[in-house]
């Protein structure tokens, strides 16, 4: 089948980008607040203030002067992640896993020398990866060493959990797994695998890659479903708190699990993608409508999580019963 029947898609509650942009992003995320999540340095500051754990910030490079300290910043035995503060979709991110023969080892196994890293940072500063090509800041943070829980179903790199938070209520979640195609990053555009996660229990379900349903990881051939996400409750709380610190009504929270530090908030997204519908094999609208209709302003994070779980249970148990 090349095209889906639009009426059936509607009936299944599948939401398109136009609707997401108008009903969720434009309605719930005031333009002025988007800065809080578009700029990773601000997100980081807010998270630290609110006590939401996140990867340790090593330093910022915002001009050639800061560049002098770059080699010092890279000297971490466990490696660092270099990101454009205003980047998106994983573009311009360089992950260094540690030193290697006078140079550095990248997540994909290649070795680079200091000069290469410097050039990359320079490109970030000149705005090559930022929206509209504006000059940018490079953010250097500690590399997350992923706890081995999902090793069976990832290929090099760091899986992360994406939780969609609507008016503070977590409504859908998915686990994103790096693949050989995605070059160690978990972004779905780049060929990462998205796996639906049961919002109530945190257990993985079936998945998708390149908009197609998959049940096994393409590189490791292991089954995607049936794995328990550790720290699930903590993650839900982190996601729900993200709403409190940003006031953005439609958020995607990206969370990773570090071997030593547990769940860390990697970034927040003001216009999260809608592929999560395919990963969960369920349209967004059914999850969105009850939250839009409800008044969540008086609920605290715990109450919102309970509300989200109720909605999820109602929708998906009705499903299981059928």
């Amino acid at each position, binding site marked *: *089948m*090349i*095209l*889906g*029947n*639009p009426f*059936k*898609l*509607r*009936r*299944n*509650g*599948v939401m*398109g*980008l*136009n*609707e997401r942009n*108008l*009903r969720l992003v434009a309605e719930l995320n005031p333009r002025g607040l988007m800065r809080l999540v578009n700029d990773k340095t601000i997100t980081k500051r807010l998270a630290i203030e609110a006590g939401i754990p996140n990867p340790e910030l090593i330093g910022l490079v915002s001009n050639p002067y800061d560049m002098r300290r770059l080699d010092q910043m890279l000297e971490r035995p466990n490696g660092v992640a270099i990101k454009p503060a205003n980047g998106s979709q*994983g*573009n*311009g991110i360089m992950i260094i896993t540690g030193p290697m023969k006078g140079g550095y080892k990248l997540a994909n196994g290649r070795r680079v020398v200091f*000069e290469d890293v410097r*050039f990359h940072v*320079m*490109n970030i500063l*000149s*705005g*090559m*990866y930022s929206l509209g090509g504006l000059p940018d800041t490079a953010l250097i943070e500690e590399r997350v060493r992923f706890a081995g829980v999902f090793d069976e179903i990832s290929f090099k790199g760091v899986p992360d959990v994406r939780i969609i938070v609507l008016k503070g209520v977590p409504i859908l979640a998915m686990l994103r797994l790096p693949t050989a195609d995605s070059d160690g990053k978990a972004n779905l*555009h*780049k060929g990462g695998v998205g796996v639906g996660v049961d919002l109530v229990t945190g257990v993985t379900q079936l998945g*998708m890659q390149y*908009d*197609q*349903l998959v049940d096994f990881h393409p590189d490791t051939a292991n089954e995607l479903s049936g794995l328990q996400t550790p720290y699930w409750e903590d993650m839900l709380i982190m996601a729900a708190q993200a709403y409190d610190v940003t006031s953005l009504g439609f958020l995607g929270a990206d969370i990773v699990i570090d071997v030593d530090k547990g769940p860390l908030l990697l970034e927040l997204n003001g216009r999260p993608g809608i*592929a999560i*519908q*395919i990963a969960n*094999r*369920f*349209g967004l*609208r*059914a999850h969105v*409508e*009850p939250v*839009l*209709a409800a008044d969540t302003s008086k609920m605290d994070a715990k109450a919102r999580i309970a509300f989200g779980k109720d909605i999820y249970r*109602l*929708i998906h148990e*009705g*499903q299981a019963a*059928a």
Partner: protein
Amino acid sequence: MSSHLHARLLAFALILLGMGIFLHKSVQNDYPIVPDQTRTIWNLEVYIEFAAGNRPVRVETYLPARSDVRDVVDEQFYSGPFGLRIVQEGVEGNRKAIWTYRYPDGPKVLRYRTTMMEENRSTPLPDSLQSEGRPADLPFQSNLQRQAFIVWISTIRRQSADNESLVELTLQEIFSPTLSDELAALIRPLPGSLGRLELARTVLESQGVPARIANGVYLDDARRRAEIVSWLEYRVDGRDRRYFPNGNPSKFFPIWYGLGEIVEAVGASEMSTQISLQPSRYAASTIARSQVDDGNFVLRMFSFDALPLTTQLVYRVLLTIPVGILLLVFLRQFIGLQTLGTFMPVLIGIAFRETALLTGLILFSILIALGLAMRFYLEKLKLLLVPRLAVVLIFIVLSMAAITILMSDGEQRIGLSISLFPMVILTMTIERMSIVWEEYSGSEAIKQGLGSLAVASITYLAMSNRYVEYLMFNFPELLLVIMGLCLLMGRYMGMRLSELRRFRELIGIKDEAEFPFKDKAE
């Protein structure tokens, strides 16, 4: 959902207003809504080819004359290495291009191009014709000729009642297949019908009827090779008249006046001159003007006729751009096409106007490919972003120059048209493509590049369509309608065509009965 309603109301108001003015103009005032076939703008091209043999060459050619009733705009010269001078001569407004070069060698080509408005029998003649409304001295040298003339003219005068019939009789006699002995003695040995025309002109002038020989082309259809024809223009009792000894054209265009040759050359051999005609844009302005003059306020307010011709030509192009944008919005919001840069395809589409579609596509692809190669090479040098962009841009200019020079031997069309190709857009496109190339894959970059080209072609076809151009130029109020449509599209919440494909796996999963929540979207 108040913003929804707000947007809709505004959109409908704009559409109603735009359509209202449009209908008022077209129905109430009979303003034609499709281009009028009889008012065409013609592209005239003079193509001169010759061999030069290492000695100074001088080529002169007549350009369309200027006068108080005619302006010549939009002229393009292709001179190659030749020096070019334009001179104006005589009261008739004749103009000449003079190309010179000291040591040319081998085959050479010179070209001149312009657009012009056709003329017909009711087109007024310029005032300059009037100034000579007095009997001229007779140019005949010998006594014999003078006597022959006096005998002949007095017969004619006797037979005619007034100036009008005098002219008619004169022309009839001069252009009759068999000449009387008197006339045969008077005609100068000139090529074609020029001898008779010149005699007719002399006779009319001697009788106080201003006249001149016009040389030009007949515009009855498009021609690769148009012939130069000559005719007589005269004014008798204040009425403008033309006499065509050859054929009976309904539309024509005079280029120069008098007895000169269209091209004269010194130092050139194997000379060949080709004049081609191509009808193109529809000059609605002439129609519009007659209607605007009648004092209708609405018509005058939404019309560009008061502007100078060159400005009008710019608006002709400018006003079609919103149509391209409308199309682009549709392709993005309803079809879901991804393009490199939001409006980039439209800008490329505008550039295609200069090059025509196929040439434009080829040119664009070549330049992008070269630029990408350059960009990947520069990657090794580790340059900062802005200087790197600058290098790519300069490289693009160089490549364009190289292509133009390579092509100039065969097909010169590209040489003239490449000039406005948007280099900056090309450079940004290359940069974007190379990022996609690195971050995703080469095939993704090429896919996006081709997608953008496809959108550019579609918008070009829409923007260059002559009906679209005519409608937008003559009914600029349609901009309001387009704006309204864009507002409506801005509130479209349904699926894009591409999403029907993207979410095709989600079709068979659930059924309505199992939905605990009703669809509250609409």
